[in-house]
């Protein structure tokens, strides 16, 4: 406390020993401690499980009977060609999602902002949110149907337009998988992602638009010279913050849309952990994969947070 004069109550409060105060706050303790313990069990105890990665874990043996192998699992991991494939897929899909997701949401926000018929504006927005609320299981079903060779709407339209002669099995082409993930991500999240940009656009000073109109700027030039520069800070900050999640490009989407033919392009970290850990029972190895992902993510998140702060912006999460 920097103020030189302290109130009597404050001095009293400071004098009181910690435990005495704590006893007085029994109710607050009762209200929070059980849940803090709950969090420690469900969020922190798994960190203790990281020890698995340094063992050659054998189910059924106790902790002290396990064979300790040091960093062997990590050595195998970095020698595994599949690991580099997983890293490539995760980064590629994350970047595609990030870039296309942001660009499409910004464009949508600009478009919605130009609509003056309120009913149409509200309805279009409400409809655009719908895919955000459905599960990936449902979304994957819809995507599969739309892309199917057996009367899928995409193939039908392309054939009617004579762009292709035979239906294409889109979900069976490895090179296309990343782009399908990107496109479905945009389809699901574009409307929801636009909300934050719309809020930013709404905060732009209307005087700027008036002044520009007087100077003879049309709507397009006002979008280009006023709206876009005004929302640039939020765009930059969201871009930087989202880079913290490059290693967590999601997994449900990839897992639910993949099949044997495209797995080399679809396998992301969680699928890798599932295949090695749960299916092949190489628990220690899969734990090492998880540790790699967690630690790199942690560094990325803190790094991007630091960057965002340096840019003079508030933390967003």
């Amino acid at each position, binding site marked *: 406390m920097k103020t030189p004069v302290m109130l009597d109550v404050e001095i009293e409060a400071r004098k009181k020993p*910690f435990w005495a*105060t704590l006893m007085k*706050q029994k*109710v*607050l303790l009762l*209200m*929070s401690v059980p*849940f803090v313990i*709950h969090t*420690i*069990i*469900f*969020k*922190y105890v*798994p*960190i203790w*499980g*990281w020890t*698995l990665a340094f063992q050659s874990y054998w189910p059924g043996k106790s902790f002290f009977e396990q064979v300790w192998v040091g960093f062997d699992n990590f050595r195998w991991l970095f020698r595994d060609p599949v690991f580099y494939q997983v890293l490539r897929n995760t980064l590629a899909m994350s970047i595609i999602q990030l870039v296309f997701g942001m660009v499409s949401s910004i464009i949508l926000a600009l*478009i*919605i902002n130009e609509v003056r018929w309120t009913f149409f504006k509200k309805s*279009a927005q*409400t409809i655009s949110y*719908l895919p955000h*609320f*459905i*599960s*990936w*299981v*449902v979304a994957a*079903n*819809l995507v*599969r*149907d*739309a892309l199917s060779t057996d*009367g899928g*709407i995409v193939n039908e339209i392309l054939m009617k337009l004579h762009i292709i002669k035979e239906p294409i*099995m889109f979900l069976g082409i490895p090179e296309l998988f990343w782009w399908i993930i990107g496109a479905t991500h945009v*389809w699901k999240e574009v409307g929801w992602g636009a*909300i*934050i940009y719309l*809020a930013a656009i709404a905060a732009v000073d209307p005087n700027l638009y008036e002044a520009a109109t007087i100077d003879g700027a*049309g*709507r397009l030039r006002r979008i280009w010279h006023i709206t876009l520069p005004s929302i640039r800070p939020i765009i930059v900050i969201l871009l930087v913050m989202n880079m913290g999640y490059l290693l967590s490009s999601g997994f449900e989407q990839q897992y*639910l849309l993949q*099949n044997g033919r495209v797995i080399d392009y679809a396998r992301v970290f*969680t699928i890798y*952990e599932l295949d090695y*850990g*749960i299916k092949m029972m190489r628990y220690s190895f*899969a*734990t090492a*994969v998880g540790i790699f992902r*967690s630690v790199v993510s*942690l560094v990325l*998140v*803190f790094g991007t947070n630091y960057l965002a702060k340096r840019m003079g912006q508030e*933390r*967003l*999460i």
Partner: protein
Amino acid sequence: MTKEDIILDIVVYISLIFLVIVTLYPFLNTLAVSFNDAMDSGKGGIYLLPRKFTLYNYKSLLGRTQTYHATLVSVLRTVLSTLFCTFSTAMVAYALSRKEFVLRKLFSFIYVLTMYIDGGLIPTYFLMRSLGLTNNFWVYVLPGLVTAFNLIVIRTYIHGLPESLVESARVDGAGDFTIFTRIILPLCKPVLATIALFVAVANWNAWFDTFLYNSSNSKLSTLQYELMKILATANSMTGSLEQAMAQAATGATNTITPRSVRATMTVIVTVPIAVVYPFLQRYFVHGLTLGGIKE
């Protein structure tokens, strides 16, 4: 209206109409297939309306005990998670919002740190197993009881309430728990509605926990997981094979195909959300902006 204005308007309206069509078509198409005769759907050409209308797909799917169980579990987990999660998060948020609470900083730190660390799939799986939460309904409710994000959102809201309300109640002799239930909870209704909705949607949509922890007990299956299994079967088959496997996959008569089972199940799973969200979007959008508030 200048020429530029008119062209811009045309572009704006056409692109939004395009967006609406692209968003809605897959849903409407699935809806049409679900109400169409399964064998007839196989011939293709179903777009927005069923050609041979039937309720058979729904009757056969809803008549199965498996669907009945899964619906029950899905509804139960959503209701229980929403109730428990909202109440306990609010309670912890209240305790951590009291400036005089000596453990406030420590507990807040414990929660905030969980936003950055992640134990990973295998250690979490082992934890659930050793806690006896595999093949157990409570794995749907217990692990996500209080999450850091929800906690911060509610705590930020409580900080925004006038402190004098709490003080005057204390002068009147109310204890912390009374203040929480009688004063804070009623005032927090808007933020609690937002959190409750987020939790409810997340729970209704979850399938991975069923897949990971409860897949060997069909009585604990959820609707999303049932749909996921149907999708997985479809993914591993293609074209004519899909038709041929129809009977094997569904175990029903030849008047139902995997395609129609998939469509019908998709509709059953989506309808609750599609019906509810337009009325609640105000809260959802509210929640999104709340998340933007820094702690």
